[in-house]
């Protein structure tokens, strides 16, 4: 899942830096992802993983890093980890 997320962020996040230089926890917005680009990332993630993010997850924080995206996707696919 991690590699797929990274590929999607690389393709749609319009980052000024190479995604491979960023750690999983690195802040994608601080790395230069704009709000508009984040919407493209969300759309691509929904398409690739065949799911829909509910409104409560559609926040800046939920997509701020590869790790945060992975947590959101895991929660959606397998239910929240207690």
């Amino acid at each position, binding site marked *: 899942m991690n590699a797929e997320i990274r590929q999607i962020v690389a393709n749609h996040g319009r980052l*000024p830096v190479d995604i491979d230089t960023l750690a999983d926890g690195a802040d994608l*917005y*601080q790395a230069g992802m704009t*709000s508009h680009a984040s919407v493209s990332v969300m*759309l691509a993630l929904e398409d690739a993983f065949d799911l829909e993010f509910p*409104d*409560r997850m*559609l*926040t*800046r924080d939920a997509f701020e890093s590869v790790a945060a995206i992975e947590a959101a996707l895991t929660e959606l696919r397998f239910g929240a980890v207690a």
Partner: protein
Amino acid sequence: MTTDGATRDNAFLTTIRQIADDVAGQHAEEVDQQARFPAESLAALRETKALSALVGEDLGGGGVSFPAIAQACFELGRRCGASAMVFAMHQIQVASIVRHLNCETPFFSDYLRGVAAEQRLIGSVTSEIGTGGDMGISVASVTPGSGGACTFEKQAPTVSYGEHADDLLTTLRRAPDAEPGDQVVVLTTRGQATLEPSGTWDTLGMRGTCSPGFTVCAAFDSEQVLPTPFARVSAETMVPVSHILWSHLWLGIATDAFDRARAFVRAAARRSPGTPPASAHKLSHVMSDLSLLRAEVGFALREFEEMSAEPGRERLSTMAGALRFNNLKIAASEQAPDVCRGALGVCGIMGFKNDTPFSMGRHLRDAMSASLMVANERIHATNASLLLIAKEV
């Protein structure tokens, strides 16, 4: 709300209504004609400690609720749009600090004590040349020096009541190498900032807000940077609070336009009892527009209060939350001038003239500013993007 809270709010609003009627309304025409700062209104607001109404009592403020502040914007808007806008802009800056206080912000707690004690007026330096009107990006940055000393230089196309503000809240990139969207807010006090005028303020409406462009240079300490990132301050406070307070004052302007039109129709009806004047029908149309505006403004405030009371204020940070308050802004900013235009249609030439009790010029011109304070087309562009992914709107 507690009884104490309700009593405080009522006392505050009684005072504000008095200031609106006896001070702001008395000087509104002159403020508008001369494009001068509504100094009398601000003196009265300071005297009654209204500038710190939203600050908690523990910090020496009035402890008034946010809905009461919104109502105050409405009351002032009915009498003087410029006074109401200055009051609203100041309260937006106060709210942006008050709602993001925590144990890491001793400077800001102390600062609010100063606002309460000295009734300091805070101006806003959020817009910037080179950003295309997008408040979510900055060109200028916090530039660190030695020992926590920092500086910035920002080219602002408008600074709210620039030379009349005591202190300034400015958005900046976090550091010289930060991305445009990696923003913080900085509070600088009088004496720390110099403002070099880069334009004039001879506008169609909201003439008394005196908000020309400036090059703002400041030297300050790193503790004056609010620790909460601007993205969060913006989503949880600055954007929704701006749209709510602005829309309340636009509703105030529209309500006074309607009141003038109603007075005109009554006078006509008294002259010819028995046959309702033709203008009464037009007035009915204006009333339905006004009631739509009032409903949207009131409902948005209630939703904001609900969302603010939730743990972590999470809904305010969602796209659906952003869409909610963007829609308020677009709807209110289009509806308010429509009401004023309708009211002008009721009064005819008596509304068109600038020196009758039914004059509508100032109302119309002030209300015309609404759609370009954060341009509606920019908000539509943001909404268009959010709509691609938000589910329930």
